[in-house]
């Protein structure tokens, strides 16, 4: 990249060199950023093209695998239906997620604060995770019927655990020196928690929150599968029953968009509450 010839003819001043290096670096960054955007788009376009022409060329029946164009057509045709059902599912996800936070965080605080509570509840909580929570879904239908309630509860049941675990881990994993420091400053234990422990735990808490939001989506859909009268999960079952595969794919598409939006929402909150972090680094929660 460095132009040797021009350098040898006229001696550049250091300011000129500075400027050149700055410009080159800036140009390279812009190129990289463009590449980060363009390459995945290109790759998706190629995949979609193969899919489209592959299904047409091989005469794959639409009920088995519809080409992307008919999925798109189904999406456009049914946009009102999809939007309405998405709304129902979104409410279930958000409600389940909210309950997860409202139960998970206080539970984590109690586990952290009280050794007795921790010793009695923590092992129970962890061993309860061996149970496949999806299997409980039919029971919830028996108990709570077909309304909003069982979906919210299933979403909560699946989603709350990572919040508890990550919050407890975040609060417990702190350098001893930070606590020594707080003691030498005469900080009360409440202020130590507020000023040091909690902010110290935030990255871990958000890692949990991000895993949870993706699980809340799964929970809501499972709830609708088992006993629903609305929502995207229910719509998937209906489309499946009528062999309307393009609509099935359109539902999956809507669900994906919903999941990405929900995840992105948590990431925005994360970035707002931790402005010191350069960029939300790759956490375990990425979908």
């Amino acid at each position: 990249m460095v132009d040797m010839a021009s350098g040898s003819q006229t001696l550049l001043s250091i300011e000129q060199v500075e400027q050149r290096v700055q410009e080159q670096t800036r140009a390279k960054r812009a190129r990289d950023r463009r590449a980060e955007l363009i390459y995945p788009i290109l790759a998706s376009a190629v995949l979609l093209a193969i899919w489209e022409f592959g299904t047409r060329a091989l005469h794959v029946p639409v009920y088995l695998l519809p080409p992307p164009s008919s999925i798109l057509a189904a999406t456009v045709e049914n946009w009102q239906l999809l939007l309405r059902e998405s709304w129902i599912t979104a409410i279930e996800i958000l409600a389940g997620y909210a309950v997860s936070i409202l139960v998970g965080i206080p539970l984590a605080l109690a586990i952290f604060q009280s050794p007795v509570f921790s010793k009695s509840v923590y092992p129970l909580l962890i061993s309860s995770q061996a149970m496949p929570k999806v299997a409980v879904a039919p029971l919830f239908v028996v108990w709570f019927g077909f309304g909003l309630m069982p979906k919210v509860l299933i979403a909560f049941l699946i989603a709350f655990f990572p919040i508890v675990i990550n919050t407890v881990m975040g609060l417990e994993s702190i350098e001893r020196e930070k606590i020594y420091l707080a003691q030498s400053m005469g900080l009360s234990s409440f202020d130590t928690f507020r000023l040091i422990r909690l902010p110290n735990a935030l990255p871990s808490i958000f890692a949990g929150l991000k895993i949870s939001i993706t699980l809340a989506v799964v929970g809501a859909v499972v709830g609708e599968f088992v006993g629903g009268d609305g929502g995207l999960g229910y719509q998937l079952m209906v489309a499946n029953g009528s062999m309307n595969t393009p609509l099935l794919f359109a539902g999956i598409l809507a669900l994906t968009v919903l999941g990405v939006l929900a995840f992105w929402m948590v990431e925005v909150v994360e970035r707002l509450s931790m402005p010191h972090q350069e960029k939300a680094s790759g956490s375990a929660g990425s979908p």
Partner: protein
Amino acid sequence: MPETPVYLEVDNLSKVYASEDGPVRALDRVSLKQQRGEFVSIVGPSGCGKSTLLMIAAGLASSSEGRVLVESKVVNAARTDLGMVFQSHVLLEWRTALENVMLQAVARKMDLKVAERRARELLAAVGLSGFENKYPRSLSGGMKQRVSICRALIHDPPHLLMDEPFGALDSLTRDQLVLDLQRICSERSTAVLFITHSIAEAVFLSDRIVVMTPRPGKIDRIIDISLPRPRTLAMRESPEFARYSREILEVFLARGVLKE
């Protein structure tokens, strides 16, 4: 300075850790006194219990036997009349340099306006003007340690406890920080209890040096350093400086810490 009052007294301090293989003696009947404004260094090999001694002196760890007194009062909880500097900077990543220094002021409910002015002065005094609003991740190791020293000094404590504060820094940064520390501490006559591996650092900074033996940690001898102040880097080449260094070295040779 025999007339100045004793600030810190460590009286017959022992610390024993229970372990699977039986008890481990970390400190064995250590006694020492530190006066107001005095700079005392503790040098010794790794594992001689010097950090343990500092932690007990700060009231952050308990002793197995013996006591610590500050101005003749027995210490039985974490002391707050001091500033602490650890080997790692222990800055809070979510606070800027200035906010990290100000944490001390917030904790002690000082007048925040006055404290902020002092914090800026202190940061400037260690060459960090312009970095007040930077987060720790964009500061170098030396800069972070400087911030942590400012944090330990903003409330003008009578006593500063430092546990190998420059251990993780390169030698040029160490030299600068040692000079800064000497200046700042003599300006406000802060007593410093300073733990180090470095003989040169100890001789350069101290009024007295406590030389410890390898485990179990006992005091081998206490050496008065009567080099004039302020000390300059050139003094490190002087024969007196070499004599003090040699004296400490002899202890380590005699104790088998070093072998020639």
